[in-house]
């Protein structure tokens, strides 16, 4: 039903919006107090820049008229045109989402992709340069991949299944984070004689609150991606949405448990921030297939992600020696890819474990690799150009004394 569909998607979008607060808290909490204000600002910038640029540019590149399966046609007026067309439909014959609902739900997703990056690049990125990064991600990089997967592009034609964006949103953010981290280099003091040092987050309680907020936000992110809430003779979105609540929640729970026990076994103690990452890992991983897996399947997906995220954080930190303060690459990049692939196994209708064929898995792998490759190339170009034109990284003094004082002229904590 027109009204219910819109009501649900608007509420879901508001919840997804709230994830920005969650990301901000996790990123602030997992880093040092001298940079807290800067990270907060970056999280706001992600969202406000996203809102503006996705409105004028990103949305049409993603959902505009398809050009060769590769990109949508740029159209600054796409939204007002659609509203005009929609308004001409007699009220009682309207159906689906209004162009506003549609845009609003999409824009909060675009901002999510951008916000992932700020965590990985925390504590050393030039603020002005970061604003430009945000613009490119929401106006260009995210929309292109998004077009492939959700905008009628080649991946959606192929049958690639990424229901709510393990790949389209999280992996894009995660791989861009990977590249950003490489181009930036590690924070001063992170590697001493090649050995990784602990740089402690200054308030893990913020991180915990952030994860709770992200978790509730995900009840908009995943079930909202049904883009409606109705029942017809052909399909029952009510049942489907409610099942997505359960699968989403199940994966988050097992993600926590698995990460907690993995860290417990590996490090002898249950690590707080790793367990929190486990929740996010489970959520990211189940996002691709939350509509087609069973609650039990979701639990297994979450558990796998919870184990992998700990191993991945370790590997990236100690072996690859990439400095990702919040674990964004592992949570969003690695677990996003992982979860997308696992759809090929756990999809209850055509996953391998349910007697399906390998085609689905193959399609998933193609999508994962294509998005990873493209994001890496595009974001590498972006970071390099920005670095050359305006310097991506702050000076040594600024980094040591804190971005808050140098970039914003003040500390956020006082007496």
């Amino acid at each position, binding site marked *: 039903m027109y009204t219910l569909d819109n009501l649900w998607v608007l509420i879901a979008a508001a919840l997804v919006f709230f994830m920005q607060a969650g990301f901000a808290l996790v990123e602030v909490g997992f880093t040092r107090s001298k940079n807290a204000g800067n990270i907060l600002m970056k999280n706001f910038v992600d969202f406000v820049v996203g809102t503006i640029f996705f409105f004028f540019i990103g949305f049409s590149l993603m959902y505009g008229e398809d050009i060769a399966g590769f990109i949508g046609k740029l159209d600054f007026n796409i939204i007002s045109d659609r509203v005009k067309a929609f308004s001409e439909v007699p009220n009682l014959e309207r159906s689906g989402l209004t162009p506003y609902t549609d845009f609003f739900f999409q824009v909060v997703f675009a901002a999510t992709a951008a916000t992932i990056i700020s965590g990985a690049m925390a504590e050393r990125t030039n603020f002005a340069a970061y604003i430009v990064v945000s613009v490119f991600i929401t106006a260009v990089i995210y929309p292109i991949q998004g077009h492939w997967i959700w905008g009628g592009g080649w991946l959606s034609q192929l049958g690639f299944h990424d229901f709510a964006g393990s790949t389209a949103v999280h992996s894009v953010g995660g791989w861009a984070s990977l590249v950003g981290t490489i181009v930036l280099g590690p924070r001063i003091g992170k590697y001493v004689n090649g050995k990784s040092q602990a740089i402690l987050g200054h308030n893990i309680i913020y991180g915990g609150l952030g994860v709770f907020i992200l978790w509730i936000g995900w009840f908009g992110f995943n079930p909202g991606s049904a883009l409606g809430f109705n029942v017809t003779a052909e399909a029952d979105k009510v049942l489907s949405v409610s099942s997505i609540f359960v699968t989403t929640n199940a994966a988050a729970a097992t993600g926590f448990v698995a990460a907690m026990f993995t860290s417990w076994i590996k490090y002898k103690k249950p690590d707080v921030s790793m367990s929190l990452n486990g929740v996010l890992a489970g959520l990211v991983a189940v996002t691709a297939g939350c509509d087609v897996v069973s609650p039990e399947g979701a639990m297994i997906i979450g558990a796998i992600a919870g184990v992998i995220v700990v191993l991945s*954080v370790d590997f990236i930190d100690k072996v690859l020696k990439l400095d990702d303060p919040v674990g964004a690459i592992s949570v969003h990049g690695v677990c996003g890819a992982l979860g997308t692939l696992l759809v090929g196994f756990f999809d209850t209708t055509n996953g391998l474990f349910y007697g399906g064929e390998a085609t689905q898995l193959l399609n998933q792998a193609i999508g994962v690799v294509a998005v990873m490759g493209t994001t890496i190339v595009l974001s590498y170009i972006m970071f390099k150009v920005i670095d050359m034109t305006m310097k991506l990284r702050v000076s040594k003094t600024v980094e040591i004394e804190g971005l808050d004082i140098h970039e914003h002229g003040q500390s956020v904590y006082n007496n």
Partner: protein
Amino acid sequence: MKKIEAIIRRDLYEQVKDALNAVGVQFFSFWDVRGCGKAHDKKQYRGTEYDTSFIERRFLSIVVNEAFVDITVKTILESACTGEIGDGKIFISPIEETIRIRNGERGPEAIYLKEKE
């Protein structure tokens, strides 16, 4: 006058304070410090071990006139001691002059609010 600096366990602070007050040592300042010792606590954060090698302690700075040095030390020794490693230290150093900001009064008199007793 002497400055008696005592580094004690944070959790014993109340006890020490009460004991000091009981013997008439009612003026001092304190703040929280971290104490480095031989015991290297291995901690870890996100799987990376780090070595804080410090313990959270409380630092008491008590300036007293000579007559009070012994009783102050004795009181701290009694009230801050658990007998286990990590009880802390007391350091005594000379103070040449003490001045009460309120009225500019100097010397040992400045240490205790005589007129109020």
